[in-house]
């Protein structure tokens, strides 16, 4: 065991009702983001840049979409023949039910313990799968060693009105020494609150101890939630993350956070830090912009062919926008085909959606229209 070596646990088991239908058959972390990335890329990249090569993924249901994307995780340098690797633990919901029915009273956290033991690390970083960020984990580790505590938690200051709006968000109370506890109630005069990003760094021994307590208390949940619940029993230091952070917990958040990539400040803070975001490349042909195309305020991945108009929109890989079609304020996932003369405004087309010639699909700023994966949108189609 190398004392300062880290391993990582990603909790991808959270799900959000408000993300429907985008999260049908895929965990939040498998959602595409920023034209060519998957949400998990941002976490894996942060982990990779910190030299971590052992990662455990805990997934609520099927892990197919995640496996398909990360494969051997070569791009993130996690496929060394000697150590490390990505270890997936899918069907957590089913395992939970099975445990409650059959194994109640035994160790619920055996997978976590085995993974951490085999990683030969001394420390573990725990992250939650719904965040888009570009975190310098080395800096958090540095902070953890220079201001000793049992646990270091990463937070970001956010406007106070978010408290209450989203019940799943957790906030921290941080004193002048940087010691954090869970926030019980926000004071009315608070303008900013310290949102817990559920990113934790701690000794593996400490996490094992917390899991022991959880077993004893009959708490069987993902380790992120467990850590949040047991924070009050430990000395916790807080690390402020000031970079780009987007929690993807609803269709609106998904839309807004993608669209804000068209603002250069956000785009640069996420993509042009010293730590580039790594993803799997798919050898797409260059994107073709036709003579008659009109593309403004847009981002495109490779493999697209654009003959029509694209304004204030994001196109993922291999999207075709035919002549006289107009795509505005929209997000088109990979493989979308927009027929001649079709009009799209405030829509999200999930993967491989075909829109027939002349079809008009309009959502509004307040009600984004989401078209599910593989849909063939004809003139008769209704959401």
């Amino acid at each position, binding site marked *: 065991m190398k004392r300062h070596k880290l391993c990582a646990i990603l909790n991808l088991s959270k799900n959000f009702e408000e993300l429907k239908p985008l999260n049908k058959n895929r965990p939040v972390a498998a959602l595409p983001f*920023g*034209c*060519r990335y998957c949400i998990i890329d941002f976490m894996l990249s942060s982990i990779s840049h910190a030299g971590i090569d052992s990662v455990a993924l805990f997934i609520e249901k099927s892990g197919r979409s995640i496996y398909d994307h990360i494969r051997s995780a*070569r*791009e993130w340098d996690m496929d060394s023949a000697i150590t490390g690797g990505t270890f997936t633990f899918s069907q957590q919901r089913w395992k939970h039910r099975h445990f409650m029915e059959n194994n109640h009273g035994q160790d619920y956290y055996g997978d976590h313990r085995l993974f951490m033991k085999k990683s030969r690390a001394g420390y573990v970083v725990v992250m939650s799968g719904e965040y888009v960020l570009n975190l310098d984990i080395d800096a958090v580790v540095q902070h953890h060693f220079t201001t000793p505590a049992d646990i270091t938690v990463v937070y970001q200051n956010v406007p106070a009105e978010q408290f209450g709006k989203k019940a799943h968000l957790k906030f921290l109370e941080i004193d002048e020494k940087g010691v954090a506890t869970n926030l019980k109630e926000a004071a009315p005069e608070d303008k900013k609150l310290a949102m817990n990003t559920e990113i934790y760094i701690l000794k593996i021994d400490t996490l094992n101890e917390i899991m022991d307590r959880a077993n004893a208390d009959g708490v069987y949940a993902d380790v992120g939630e467990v850590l949040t619940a047991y924070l009050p029993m430990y000395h916790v230091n807080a690390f402020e993350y000031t970079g780009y952070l987007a929690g993807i917990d609803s269709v609106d958040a998904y839309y807004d956070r993608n669209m804000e990539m068209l603002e*250069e400040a956000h*785009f640069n803070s996420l*993509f*042009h830090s010293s730590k*580039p*975001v*790594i*993803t*799997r*490349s798919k*050898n797409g*042909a*260059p*994107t*073709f*912009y*036709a*003579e008659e*195309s009109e*593309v*403004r*305020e*847009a*981002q*495109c*991945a*490779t*493999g697209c*062919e654009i003959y029509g108009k694209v304004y204030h929109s*994001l196109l993922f890989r291999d999207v075709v926008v035919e002549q006289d079609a107009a795509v505005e304020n929209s997000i088109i996932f990979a493989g979308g085909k927009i027929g001649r003369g079709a009009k799209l405004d405030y829509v999200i087309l999930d993967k491989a959606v075909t829109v027939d010639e002349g079809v008009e699909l309009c959502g509004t700023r307040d009600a984004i229209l989401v078209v599910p994966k593989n849909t063939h949108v004809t003139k008769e189609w209704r959401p």
Partner: protein
Amino acid sequence: MKTEIVAMILAGGQGTRLGKLTRETAKPAVPFGGRYRIIDFTLSNCTNSGIYNVGVVTQYQPLELNEHIGNGAAWGLDRRNSGVKILQPYSSADGEKWFRGTANAIYQNLAYIDSQNPEYVLILSGDHIYKMDYMEMLEFHKERNPALTVAVIPVPIEEASRFGIMNTDSTMRVIEFEEKPKEPKNNLASMGIYIFNWPILRRYLVEDQAKARQLEDFGKHVIPSFLKNGENIFAYSFDNYWKDVGTIESLWEANMDFINPRHELNIRDQSWRIYTKTIALPPQFITRKAKVKYSMLVDGCYIAGEVYHSILSKDVKVGEGSKVTNSIVMAGATIGKNVEVAYAIIGENAHIADNAQVIGTPDSIEVVGYSEVIGGLKDEEA
């Protein structure tokens, strides 16, 4: 272990006529079509043909090429018992051994080919842009079983005197080979793609080394020697897109043609994909003020100006008020504000400072070298 076929890609060429573009890199490593390098086409053809034993013979300025090919993973050539091997000249007890020609390069890598123990050797050049199923050529070869099959492409008869021409009989048997004939009798030009029965080629090369040491080049020496000794040679006719981008103008022209979405190479064909080594970069960013027409762009581009009839490679920046027309901009190049670029090739990581101009003509393409900086001083002085 017996291998049916080994491909040897000759990638040592300098490509002198590409001027600044090959001063510090070999011709096969020259960028093409926005995200590719010339050798990607040959390497992808090997993978797509199911040929996984590939030797890449390098010599001239190999750094960039080695870096690009790496362990071959980008082409699926990082396999357990096969894959890509980069073969460079080496010295030995017999002294230094620079490759003296195409055939000599094969002779000097006898040890690699022997280690694969193939029945056939496929000789390729890393300089050409085309899509070809080498297995179809191998089938042709196996049906006739000559000592050598040469791939040929019909060229316009008036241009035939620029090529090595194969004169064939009605069964496509080669009866005569003429290098750049003044009065061509035929229009079937050699593509520099050969399938040899390895034991025969091996015997010729080894015996020659013991004697005259004349078999340095396939076209000049090996083919005439085969014909003289009555070895069977067949011509395999290929008539799809094939381009040798040997000069600045032909490189520019081939790129401009490539923009056309109906281009013969059909780069979007999923059944014959062209692979390349890539690093992940953010999406193409087209700002509110930008205009992009009849152009091809790849990842990492940031366009605030105007781009017409051009190919931009990864991580290219075009500042506000700038105009790029009929040009190729290679990876990492930055074009400042109010710049005009026309009929030009801008090398990798070049920088065109604000208000500068790089303007060529269709007959004389302006080239800015790799990492070259144009303009900028005047502004500082003023």
